[in-house]
């Protein structure tokens, strides 16, 4: 069939072409959809580092996605209401600058990943799946019941955060921001997977005993991978908050964790552009099936099931006829 690079190039080309065509055709909503694909794909790229390279089946990545989103939402809401974020020990105000919001989102989701990872990585297998789910549920319930930032109602941003030199309210320009972030995330994932760290991480996924025997501590490896993974997903969350101009606990729900996993697996686990293929297919299905039937989620489930059962290696695996990654 096709080489993986060919498929990847085609995917990226489509992702760029669709909004441009949509812009010309005066269909700005399609640009919004493409932006959503880029952002979800980026969340998937984050998860893929833990899941694909580290073999860590995290069922709690919604926690990082949501924490990134809330970092953006909280900073923006303070900036809009001109209230300080905190006054002690030193005064910090809100901001609407993406270039300040992003590092904060990265730091917040990174710290959360460090804490959750440090505890969760003591376990493995099903226990790991379940404990990551439990931590995400904890964060979810906290967000629902904590009144300061809207609780269940969520937190509106009203006006999209700013990026120097761009008008982020213009769909195409915001797409460009999201797309650039996505590409950067893929770049990080590619470089990481080929580095010494990535080699050891993938070795630990295949044979943890062997990695120990050559004197490498798998716990530290995995923790670092988990943190990087959480940070990338967190940054995607910050962008998603800006796309919707709104954050809410639904970003933290276990269904969101499930969906991020779906993007990765639909596209092909452990493939750099797998999450892009997965997210694009998912969003296409969501919108196309919705017009087929009110019960479109049934069809979505059926398709998903068929992919898991019969299409090994996900979409990219099918397109390249290579069920196993290189």
């Amino acid at each position, binding site marked *: 069939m096709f080489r993986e690079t060919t498929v990847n190039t085609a995917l990226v080309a489509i992702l760029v072409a669709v909004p441009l065509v949509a812009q010309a055709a005066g269909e700005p909503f*399609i640009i*919004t959809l493409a932006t959503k694909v880029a952002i979800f794909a980026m969340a998937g790229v984050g998860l893929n580092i833990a899941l694909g390279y580290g073999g860590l089946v995290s069922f709690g990545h919604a926690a990082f996605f949501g924490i990134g989103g809330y970092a953006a939402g909280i900073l923006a809401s303070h900036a809009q209401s001109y209230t300080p974020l905190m006054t002690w020990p030193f005064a910090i105000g809100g901001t609407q600058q993406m270039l300040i919001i992003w590092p904060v989102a990265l730091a917040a989701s990174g710290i959360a990943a460090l804490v959750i990872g440090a505890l969760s990585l003591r376990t493995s297998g099903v226990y790991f799946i379940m404990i990551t789910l439990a931590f995400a549920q904890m964060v979810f319930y906290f967000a629902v019941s904590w009144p300061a930032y809207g609780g*269940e109602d969520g937190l509106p941003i*009203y006006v999209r955060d700013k990026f120097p030199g761009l008008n982020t309210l213009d769909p195409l320009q915001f797409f460009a921001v999201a797309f650039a972030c996505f590409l950067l995330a893929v770049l990080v994932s590619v470089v990481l997977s080929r580095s010494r760290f990535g080699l050891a991480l993938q070795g630990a996924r295949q044979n943890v005993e062997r990695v120990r025997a050559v004197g490498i501590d798998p716990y530290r490896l995995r923790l670092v991978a988990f943190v990087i993974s959480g940070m990338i997903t967190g940054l995607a969350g910050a962008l998603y908050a800006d796309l919707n101009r709104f954050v809410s606990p639904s970003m933290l729900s276990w269904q969101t964790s499930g969906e991020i996993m779906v993007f990765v697996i639909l596209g092909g686990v452990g493939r750099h552009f797998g999450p892009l293929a997965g997210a694009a297919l998912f969003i296409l299905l969501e919108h196309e099936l919705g017009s087929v039937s009110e019960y479109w989620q049934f069809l979505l489930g059926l398709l998903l099931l068929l992919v898991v059962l019969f299409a090994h290696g996900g979409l990219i695996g099918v397109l390249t006829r290579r069920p196993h990654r290189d």
Partner: protein
Amino acid sequence: MKMIKSTLAAVAMLAATTAAYAEPVKVGMITTLSGGGASLGIDARDGFMLAIKNSGNSDVEVVIEDDQQKPDVAVQLADKMIQSDKVDILTGIIWSNLAMAVVPAAVAQGKFYLSVNAAPSQLAGPGCDAHYFSISYQNDNLHEAAGAYAKEAGYKNMFILAPNYPAGKDSLSGFKRFYDGELAGEIYTQLGQTDYAAEIAQIRASGADGVFFFLPGGMGIAFMKQYAQSGVDTPLIGPAFSFDQNILQAVGDAALGVKNTANWSKDIDNEANKAFVESYQAEYGRLPSVYSSYGYDTANLMLSALDKASVSDADAFQKALEEADFDSVRGKFSFASNHHPIQDIYVREVVKEGDILTNKIVATAMTDRDNAYVGDCKM
């Protein structure tokens, strides 16, 4: 890539008494049609579409999409409807958190938003907007009425509970706004909780003379069934949501005799209401719920304003809406200055008509009630 034609682009058929507008009006309806909360959205949609059909107006095109009760989906649908479908008016949202996600941005883009249900306090006070109208109520209204009724009925020591989320907190503060007796207890339950044994035990131990609860959807069904089994016989009072036509049958006899507050009931005596209940039953084969009535009123209000002004003339259209010149199924209906209704709120009791559980009005809790946020709205 062919994109997403609307799921149900419903165009009214009968062109009998059509008022021809300069150009067709496009309405975007974002509501919950799948998942656990679907029954509310379906009722609101059916009420809305029934009014349009009955009007025989063929110049209104309604684009309907399912928000899955997810705020992010609702936001994206709003973007789609505004950018691609080029709708003039948005409506349909059931849940406050979804409304908070969609409404501020939509009205900021100059669109009109007519609420068929959700009306959070943020949109009634400082966040009010000239283009935003709530046809249902202000979220606190039914809770306030319950408080007023509890005071009126002589309750002195009430136990109150609601889920731990903003609407739940608004509910209890709304109740306390008009109730001035003692509180035997005040509990916030978990959102989506299904077992209320622990709370019922506390009610039993508290010695309260009445219980006010706000538990929408499945939570209320579970609470009432369990309450009926508990042997506690302290009277229950709640807003209409847990006693509405769409869930009463699931609660069963456990709900019999419970007092609830509502701004609509199928036995409100006026022509518009009779016609509504009759044609709704004929069209869909079931009794309408409060959500059906809100949907129906919303469509009729919109049609009445369209008859007077074009949507493209925003100021004129806003004025026409403000006049509320339509036959509400609630009888008298007008708007307060913050675009929320001034209306009577009733106390209903759950009764059995044949095999069917339903409500009948037993008292009026509040007359010409506006809302607590009128003064905060600078419009």
